[in-house]
């Protein structure tokens, strides 16, 4: 390896605090990580192992660079280091001989074909990236394990960062990752790419994880650790990766649309004190118009591909109705109710049916909506769900049936787990009781 001209000289690194240096090196590594892991996975034919060796290269950089400075071609340095580790690993004979020879030959070819950093850019990482995502999100793994692996393998987050983002101890995440990798290796799933129909089938397990990561970040409020909202961006990034490497999958575009459209409201979702603001009360001037446009484009693409009725595309279509309304009163509620009806037919969820009832109430009035809600009352899945009596109370109140409304709000308050919600429901029950007295 030639002596490299340091682009961040050691003197400068020395002047930084240890934490800054760590972050600077991590940043360089994160930029290079997707190419490192995909290249190694191809020659090793083992994604979890490739991930481990890529991480080893980071540890080596953290050890070396504070003394030597960041090399001019950090990607080449990291690649050379990771590959040396891969050779060492093979020499230790952990793999069967035949595979060893095959891999060693591939690696030599690889090194000859990749003399320096510039030509290393020739690699088309698309295919390998797809393999990486499908391995990390294998349906054999639990949703939580898939999310942790995806953030580590695809987004280059460290175990500590993932733990902070999910508000869990480091050890929990570390264990989750180790177990997941072991499951993959032991089941012989460490290196495979689904194609054609299999790809479409497996895609749902990937999209589910991306959406889980997005929601984990989306429910975080302002002022919390920056890593939690950052999860939204990582999920959006994974969504963009999927739409660029699997461009013919309508649901990938549908999910990207849903995430872009939801994320477009970020600035309007909380007040200065960090308290949430309901969608209909948000200042729409704060919505990110460019993000809405990107969401609408992704939704249009999903529809062009014949995916208008998909699980994510339908949810995106509902959010799009809000995004396109200039004011809350311009909202096209009958269209929203229609999308909810399609969604309910697709997944048969009583919660979606309840949401449909709310949209129907806005579109056609409380009476029609109450009929839907009353049909849901015996639903076992909604037993104990406070929003059912809460919505019912609201509809009864609007119909002037105050005594029944009061009883519904009381029931809802008893079920509400959250203090603020509980108080709000008690206040609504009291208001209904007053109205019953004076009517």
């Amino acid at each position, binding site marked *: 390896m030639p002596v490299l001209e340091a*682009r961040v000289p050691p003197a400068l690194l020395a002047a930084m605090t240890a934490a800054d240096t760590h*972050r*600077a090196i*991590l*940043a*360089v590594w*994160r*930029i290079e990580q*997707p*190419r490192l892991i995909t290249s190694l996975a191809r020659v090793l034919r083992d994604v979890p192992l490739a991930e481990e060796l890529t991480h080893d290269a980071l540890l080596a950089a953290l050890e070396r660079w504070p003394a030597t400075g960041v090399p*001019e*071609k*950090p*990607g080449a340095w990291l690649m050379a280091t990771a590959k040396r580790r891969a050779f060492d690993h093979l020499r230790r004979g952990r793999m069967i001989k035949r595979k060893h020879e095959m891999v060693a030959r591939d690696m030599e070819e690889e090194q000859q074909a990749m003399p320096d*950093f*510039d030509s290393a*850019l*020739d690699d*088309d*990482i*698309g295919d390998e*990236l797809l393999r990486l995502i499908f391995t990390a999100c294998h349906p054999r793994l639990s949703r939580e394990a898939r999310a942790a692996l995806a953030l580590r393998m695809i987004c280059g987050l460290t175990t500590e960062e993932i733990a902070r983002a999910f508000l869990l101890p480091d050890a929990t995440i570390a264990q989750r990752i180790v177990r997941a990798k072991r499951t993959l290796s032991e089941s012989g799933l460490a290196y495979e790419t689904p194609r054609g129909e299999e790809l479409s089938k497996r895609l749902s397990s990937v999209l589910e994880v991306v959406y889980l990561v997005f929601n984990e970040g989306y429910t975080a409020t*302002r002022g919390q650790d920056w890593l939690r909202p*950052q999860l939204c*961006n990582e999920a*959006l*990034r*994974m*969504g*963009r*990766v999927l739409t*660029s*490497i699997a461009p013919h999958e309508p649901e990938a575009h549908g999910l990207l649309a849903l995430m872009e459209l939801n994320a477009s409201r*970020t*600035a309007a979702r909380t007040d200065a004190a960090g308290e949430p603001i309901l969608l209909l009360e948000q200042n729409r001037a704060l919505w990110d118009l460019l993000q809405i446009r990107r969401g609408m484009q992704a939704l249009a693409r999903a529809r062009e591909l014949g995916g208008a009725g998909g699980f994510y595309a339908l949810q995106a279509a509902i959010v799009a109705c809000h995004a396109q309304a200039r004011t809350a009163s311009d909202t096209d509620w009958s269209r929203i109710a229609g999308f909810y009806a399609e969604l309910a037919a697709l997944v048969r969820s009583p919660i979606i049916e309840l949401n449909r009832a709310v949209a129907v109430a806005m579109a056609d009035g409380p009476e029609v909506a109450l009929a839907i809600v009353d049909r849901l009352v015996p639903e076992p899945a909604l037993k104990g769900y406070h929003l059912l009596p809460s919505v019912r109370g609201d509809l009864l109140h609007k119909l002037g049936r105050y005594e029944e409304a009061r009883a519904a709000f009381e029931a809802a308050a008893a079920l509400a787990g959250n203090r603020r919600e509980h108080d709000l429901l008690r206040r609504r029950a009291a208001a209904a009781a007053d109205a019953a007295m004076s009517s």
Partner: protein
Amino acid sequence: MRFMYIVTSAHSGPPTPELLDAMHKLADREIKAGRMLDNGGLTPLAMGARVRIIDGQLSVLDGPFVEAKEVIGGYAVFELPGKEEAVAMATEFMQLHKNLMPGWEGTCEVRAFAGP
């Protein structure tokens, strides 16, 4: 965090084919990695125009402009975890210029978007 990269240079000529090719590959990699949201090269300033307000007067000026030295040649928008990653990205981009277009001098400005 979202970042805008603004590349300025006194060189007005087009990039060498090698540089163009390398930048194309870098862009392809970054789009597939979901990090690059948008980018573009601009035609020379001489072909552009300036609309400005000076002393309360609005004026429209067509190029070329004599006083222009460092002009914007292109831009890119990236979504990255933080400023360190943004600087690492810009460094990789500029390294390509250093390697593949000897004699070229210029600046890549890294600016975070304002907002939440």
